[in-house]
């Protein structure tokens, strides 16, 4: 059987992490292709439904990445995101999701290698965990 390839949704802020991912591409830094990047204007606009919908549609992991606190284009995005993240972390924990499947990172534009590292680490960790328990599949 082919090796399990997790699906990861990365919600990346337009001004920092999305640019970092872009730079990672143009500077040919390798990172696993398991990640599907969704561009959002700010990490502070990430609504809880984005996280739950991703898991509902079969994601094995969700990453929310944006600017460092002082760099926010809209002044107060990151703290808003952190508050939402803490709430949702408790909710998905209750649903029985393992640690590491929902992750929050701050990656600025110049940190392309860090972006690659984060994705690599996340893919490695989720490969060990296997399929998300929230998927519509019956145990074999």
């Amino acid at each position, binding site marked *: 059987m082919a090796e399990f390839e997790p699906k990861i949704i990365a919600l990346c802020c337009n001004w920092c992490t999305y640019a970092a991912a872009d730079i990672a591409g143009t500077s040919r830094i390798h990172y696993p292709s398991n990640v599907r990047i969704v561009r959002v204007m700010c990490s502070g606009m990430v609504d809880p439904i984005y996280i739950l919908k991703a898991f509902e549609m079969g994601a094995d992991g969700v990453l929310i990445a944006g600017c460092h606190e002082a760099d926010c284009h809209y002044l107060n995005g990151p703290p808003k995101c952190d508050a939402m993240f803490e709430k949702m972390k408790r909710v998905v924990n209750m649903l*029985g999701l393992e640690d590491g499947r929902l992750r929050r990172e701050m990656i600025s534009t110049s940190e392309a290698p860090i972006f690659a590292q984060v994705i690599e680490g996340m893919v490695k960790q989720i490969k060990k965990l296997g399929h998300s328990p929230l998927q519509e599949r019956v145990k074999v």
Partner: protein
Amino acid sequence: MNLEDIIKETKTYYCLECGKCTSLCPVSRHNSNFSPRLMLERALMDFEGELIHDRELFSCLTCYACSNLCPSDVDYPVFTQKVRNLAFGQGEHGDCAHSGTLLSLMRLMSRPCIKQRRLEWLDGCRTSEKSEVLYFVGCAPYFQPVFEDIEVSPVNIARNSIKILNALGIEPMVLPNERCCGHDLLWTGDVETFKKLAQFNAQMIKESGAKKIVFSCPEGYRTFKLDYPNYVDLGCEVLHISELLVEKIGQNGVKFKEIKKNVTYQDPCRLGRHLGIYESPREIIKAIPGIKLTEMEHSGDESICCGTSAWTNCGSYSKKIREERLFEAKATGAEVLVTACPKCQIHFKCAMVDKGAEKGPDIKMEVMDLVNLVADAMET
């Protein structure tokens, strides 16, 4: 089920077009685009497409105020429920409150492989592995992180319910992997997921060997009592905690200490008009010495809904309904508004902390769940 079957089942063809439903409807009072009478007329004239794609289909609170006084006994809430199911099949969802987060959460609970960690709040409660009585917790643990910042603690209601059961000499079971009852999904049209949840719950309950299920949430109670029998076989008795308490109070089995408070009582629509339980919560409140219960202008089967149900269509009209209800509550001179539904509490608290409400008249007052009030009175 097609529209014709729905019309037959809910006796819509008996509609006299008298308009009582629309004049009683708490939504129609504020939102002139919504009218139960017109909805029924459209169904009878066979304008199915228009009915299904109407935004206002999801405006109904399914509070039963209309059917309660309908001279022809048309079951409008069930009509809404079934038409919403047709609409859901065609991709209509209505405007979900909280962008649909809570409904998504309920859908996630229908996934077969989940192993929930939902019982971390149980400290101080005595539960047993094997018992005849099962306490159905409901969504409280999930609502806790979501609604903590408006000062509502649904988990506290669950904890106090178990403590009350303990004081009555019952050590209930709680299911570690209990699923959502599916109430909100059923009433927003997602019957497929509702069925899955019902099957999971019924199977777990059967395996647990429970004979009686006790609820503190009226929505879960309604769903188990009236909706589950249509889909699954539970094979056990379902009870609301207030019914159990009234029985024990009647047998002098409960001692309350004095609480000096003026209170008023909000009938949750699921407990009141859906199931006809008006008296037992009132008897419990009256049994606590020192408490003065004053009824609101609209109470009992005339009481007004808290403004939102099943996490859909919470907008300015809902806010207005809530504000009006809170005015009524304040007008009684009571300090505390007692309700028996965690969602009523959430909705009223939300109206109070709303920034827009600060400019308007004062609607702030203490909102308390019946269970919490009883638990306070039982503490020695």
